[in-house]
């Protein structure tokens, strides 16, 4: 057999046009060839190679990296860094446990930081009459019931504070003077609530939601939000659901979306996952400027700034990761990383000198203690010190 014929044999095999005998020939050659070769172990870091290949495999399989648990045994540091333009990008490990390998150890800082845990499921309910009730795991039974709150536990152990429809007598009153309750979270608190119409709302830290005690006999379901919340709105075409933030109003029929309206983040960001929403800027923070309204498609994010609203393609996972228990960074500046952390760990961030230009990419579980969180960030060579509730950044 000459070379040309051999090449043709290979071609026929790949095209599946080879005869049985030709298939046998080539497969026998292949076996002999592979047995005659030795794989020499020039790879110094097998764990890393294994992780690299696995990462690519997951991506091509359209899979998410699994949570910490199943990764522990694979004993590989899910950590690598690369640079984008001039900024050093630190890719945080997906599983904070691996960070134990980190060489940076600052015993004193760590001891203090480890005592500071992330936020908990807690909020304050302010009734129309001004009475304040702290809603936490401990509040059960009568106290909660009086306030028109029904506490239930979901299958995965999450607490849901379900607001009952106000009683009939009160509802008549509220027609004359509409009564509002306010549910608010402080720094380090988050909270899940089911409104009387069945809509589910996740409230992030340092946020508040003002809602009427009853949606009955109202043309629309109007609530006011500060901070950040994720909404899953129950369908009710006759009663559009409206969320008012400082400078915009979002009108929906039945849909899933997230609004991030933290003042220090600039304008409100509204991210739509399902359905459709109409977003209108508010003139003087009051009147809907309907001529400047925009309609959002699923997968889009609107960024409202002053009187204008821009639409961009959203990173959905990033926008709602907080409600699933993750900090999610994608080339995120240190300032933004720490701003979110400050709300969650109830910290005051103090920069000593200029703010480092590092950018971060990755996911960190929100239930990590501050100590572990800091260990991840310190892989970037930035140094942190904790003094009480102050975080000093070098």
């Amino acid at each position: 057999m000459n070379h040309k014929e051999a090449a043709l044999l290979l071609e026929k095999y790949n095209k599946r046009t080879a005869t049985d005998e030709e298939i046998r020939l080539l497969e026998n050659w292949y076996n002999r060839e592979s047995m005659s070769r030795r794989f020499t172990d020039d790879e110094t870091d097998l764990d890393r190679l294994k992780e690299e290949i696995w990462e690519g495999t997951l991506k091509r399989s359209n899979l998410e990296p699994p949570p910490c648990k199943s990764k522990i045994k694979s004993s590989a540091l899910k950590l690598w860094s690369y640079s984008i333009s001039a900024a050093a990008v630190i890719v945080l490990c997906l599983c904070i446990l691996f960070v134990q390998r980190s060489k940076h150890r600052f015993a004193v800082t760590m001891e203090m930081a480890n005592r500071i845990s992330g936020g908990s499921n807690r909020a304050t309910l302010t009734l129309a009459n001004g009475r304040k009730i702290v809603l936490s795991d401990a509040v059960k039974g009568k106290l909660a019931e009086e306030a028109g709150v029904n506490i239930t536990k979901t299958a995965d152990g999450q607490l849901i504070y379900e607001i009952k429809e106000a009683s009939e007598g009160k509802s008549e009153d509220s027609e004359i003077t509409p009564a509002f309750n306010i549910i608010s979270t402080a720094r380090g608190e988050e909270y899940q609530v089911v409104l009387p119409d069945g809509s589910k709302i996740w409230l992030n830290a340092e946020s508040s939601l003002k809602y009427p005690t009853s949606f009955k006999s109202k043309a629309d379901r109007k609530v006011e939000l500060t901070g950040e919340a994720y909404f899953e709105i129950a369908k009710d075409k006759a009663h559009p659901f409206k969320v008012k933030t400082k400078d915009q109003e979002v009108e929906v029929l039945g849909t899933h979306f997230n609004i991030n309206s933290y003042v220090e983040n600039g304008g409100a960001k509204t991210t739509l996952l399902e359905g459709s929403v109409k977003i209108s800027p508010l003139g003087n923070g009051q009147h809907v400027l309907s001529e400047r309204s925009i309609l959002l498609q699923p997968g889009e994010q609107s960024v409202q700034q002053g009187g204008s609203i821009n639409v961009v393609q959203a990173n959905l996972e990033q926008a709602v990761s907080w409600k699933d228990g993750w900090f999610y960074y994608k080339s995120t500046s240190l300032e933004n990383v720490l701003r979110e952390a400050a709300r969650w760990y109830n910290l005051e961030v103090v920069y000593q000198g200029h703010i480092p230009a590092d950018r971060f990419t990755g996911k960190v579980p929100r239930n990590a203690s501050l100590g572990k969180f800091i260990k991840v960030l310190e892989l970037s060579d930035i140094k942190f010190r904790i003094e009480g509730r102050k975080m000093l950044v070098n």
Partner: protein
Amino acid sequence: MGRYSKYSDKELTDLLKSGDQPAFTEIYNRYWSVMYAHVYKMLRDREEAKDVIQEIFSKLWLKATEIRSNQNLAGFLYVAARNRVLNLMEQNRVRNDYVKSIASFVSEIDPSAIDHVDEKKIIQIIEQEILNLPPKMREIFEMSRKENLSHKEIAEKLNISDQTVKKQVQNALKIIRPKISNLSVFIFALIILK
């Protein structure tokens, strides 16, 4: 994870077909090393080998429902890898040493010595590939499947006696012993194998 490492290949295949992601992870943990070693030595290109491994494992996940439940998992992966390697060999004309090797093989081979490469044969080939792994990789591989393949199972699969398998394992131990620093770990793996 601990639970999954105890599953046999067949159990993992069934779980995989039902869309079980931890089963997929376990299959990868179990077979990535031997598949990588095989593909790398055939292609002699690290990036290309990585690409092939990612492709065959992601296909395993995406097309899991098409796998027969009595399909031998290692055999399935091996055939996928072989097909891909042969494809790449054809595409890459620069390396005509393959063509040369095929030509001389076909010219010299005694036709009666050519046998059909069936599943049983492939399983034998894989076992041989495992034995030929560099010690460190082999150790990883043996550890990864220590709990799911007893001598008896290997013997049944290969259609040889337990004694032969035991002997092979003992031989393997002799070869590996001087090279492995962390001997206790590996011995533990072999005890489990018994």
